[in-house]
């Protein structure tokens, strides 16, 4: 049977090609398949549900005990989109994301370049400090950080949001590991040709590091999209409100359930699109532990 034939080429895992001849193992393989399909349902159902529920109006939502809406009326969605001015929030989120992603690549990349290649005297101390900040989540000192942002007058501006992405120990480590794998001969040759420290970074390191640049770009974009505590504290109540800040503020302002759900639906569209395009890079990056935390 075709379903079991493919097990003959199985390369990893406990069940080997020769096991599948036994009926017991065949049943086990089928059960595993069913459990995996069930896991898929559990994983995808909430996103699917919010999509379906967004089509209901408030009466239907509070009264009908059903999963599927009565009709698929896009104008309701559009109504919520316009009523809450989501175009503006999307635009603000885009501004935040572009700055955050650029900062994540430039600053973490440069620091990793220092740690992996330049290695100036005393760099070990700085490296140690960065490694420790990997362990202490920034959220614990958010009160002091917000106080500082206020004191230097950067409140209600995108600047602290952007630059906060330039100090991410995790991405520094990721860049550093990759840079260490770049052949030293190339760098030595460039040095002999008279390239300066920054020139080597721009002309040699960056072109050779495309895979890791893509990974950090994708993960910083999705992280910036989902980021909301610092943006909430800094941007709430200004005209720079991002999608997540708006979604967070529903906590304190009574809003009808359907509008909140539609807003949540709007908030999951961009990451879903990015995931659909870059799923290979994202799952491979995650498998190597690139985004723990």
């Amino acid at each position, binding site marked *: 049977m075709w379903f079991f034939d493919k097990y003959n080429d*199985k390369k*990893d*895992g*406990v069940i080997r090609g020769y*096991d599948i001849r036994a009926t017991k193992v065949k049943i*086990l393989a089928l059960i595993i*398949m069913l459990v*995996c399909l069930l*896991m*898929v349902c559990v*994983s995808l159902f*909430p*996103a699917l*549900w*919010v999509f379906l*529920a967004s089509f209901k109006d408030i009466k239907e939502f509070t*009264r009908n*005990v059903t*999963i599927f809406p009565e009709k698929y009326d896009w104008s309701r969605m559009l109504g919520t989109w316009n009523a809450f001015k989501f175009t503006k929030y999307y635009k603000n989120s885009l501004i935040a994301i572009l700055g955050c992603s650029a*900062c994540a690549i430039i*600053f973490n990349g*440069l*620091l990793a*370049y*220092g740690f992996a290649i*330049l*290695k*100036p005297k005393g760099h070990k101390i700085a490296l140690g400090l960065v490694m*420790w*900040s990997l*362990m*202490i*989540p920034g959220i*614990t*000192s958010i*009160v*002091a950080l917000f*106080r*500082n942002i*206020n004191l230097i007058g950067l409140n209600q501006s995108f600047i602290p949001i952007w*630059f*906060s992405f330039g100090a991410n120990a995790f991405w520094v480590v990721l860049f550093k590991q990759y840079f260490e794998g770049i052949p030293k001969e190339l760098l030595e040759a460039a040095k002999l040709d008279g390239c300066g*420290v920054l020139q080597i970074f721009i002309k040699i390191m960056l072109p050779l590091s495309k895979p890791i640049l893509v990974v950090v770009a994708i993960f910083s974009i*999705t992280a910036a*999209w989902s980021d*909301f505590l610092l943006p909430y504290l800094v941007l709430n109540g200004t005209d720079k409100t991002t999608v*997540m800040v708006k*979604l967070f503020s*529903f906590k304190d302002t009574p809003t009808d359930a359907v509008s909140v759900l539609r807003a*949540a639906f709007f*908030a*999951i569209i961009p*990451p*879903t699109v990015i995931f659909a395009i870059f799923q290979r890079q*994202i*799952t491979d990056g*995650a*498998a*190597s532990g690139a*985004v723990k935390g």
Partner: protein
Amino acid sequence: MKAANKPKEKFRKRDLISWLVMLPSLILFAFFVWEPLLENIRLSFYSTKMYETVAFTGLKNYNLVLHDVDFMAAFKNTFSYTLWSLVIGFFVPMIIGVLITETVHLKGFFRMAVYFPNIMPSLATIWIWSYFFLPGATGVLNIIAGKMGMGPYEWLNDPRWTIPLIIITLTWKSAGSTALIYMANIASISPDLYEAATIDGAGIMQRIRHITIPSIFGIAKTMLILQIISVFQILYEPMIFKNGGPNNASISLMMLMYRYGYRDYNVGKAASLSVLVCIILVILSGIYMRATREKEN
């Protein structure tokens, strides 16, 4: 002498340039990570008015925090969060990883699907889950339970279930990424081991117990500590689901810090609580560092 001096001098100049290249990033680290940490320690010893320090008060803030009823509740809850995340959150990713490894059809799709919740913004998923847990007949989980002839249940409103349910939503969101890490580790196990075990007469369950589990034990230890560290930071879920309730049943340490800081505007108190949390995290991190070093050796 001169010839020996020259490269050394050049080396120094290179050092300086290198530090200059790293300087902007280090300033960012100082501003966003290191300084706030130290500032927190300083603030924790002061009484404050809005964001201004008023007077040095020694350990008074700590005293206030430690005798706060809410703190006792949050502290107790942290143990509950940790315990439940060990029971639910630790084994689920491992099981997912093992199961997906054993499939040959749709493997890429399974990998993608279990990772999908990870990519969704946590804020959006929290809102979605809060409608899943609605206690009435229209709550999504009650609809599903009703179809199977059960319920309706109270879900988050039942204080015994608030924390376990929060942990379930967290596990739903993050298990996929941990499972992928386990899968990468399982895939690197040499097939020869399994084949040798088969020749020795080991069945499938025995092979899992004696080969797969020991091979991922090292990475599992690391994941366990990372998970405990992340449990200490739970903030948004209890805040949005039930605002720490019902009756403080789900309030977390970070949420209490947020309350001190942004509801009571008591920066000193918030700072002293976050110093306490940091001390716990540093200890846990020390254990983590030791565990990973053992793995490398």
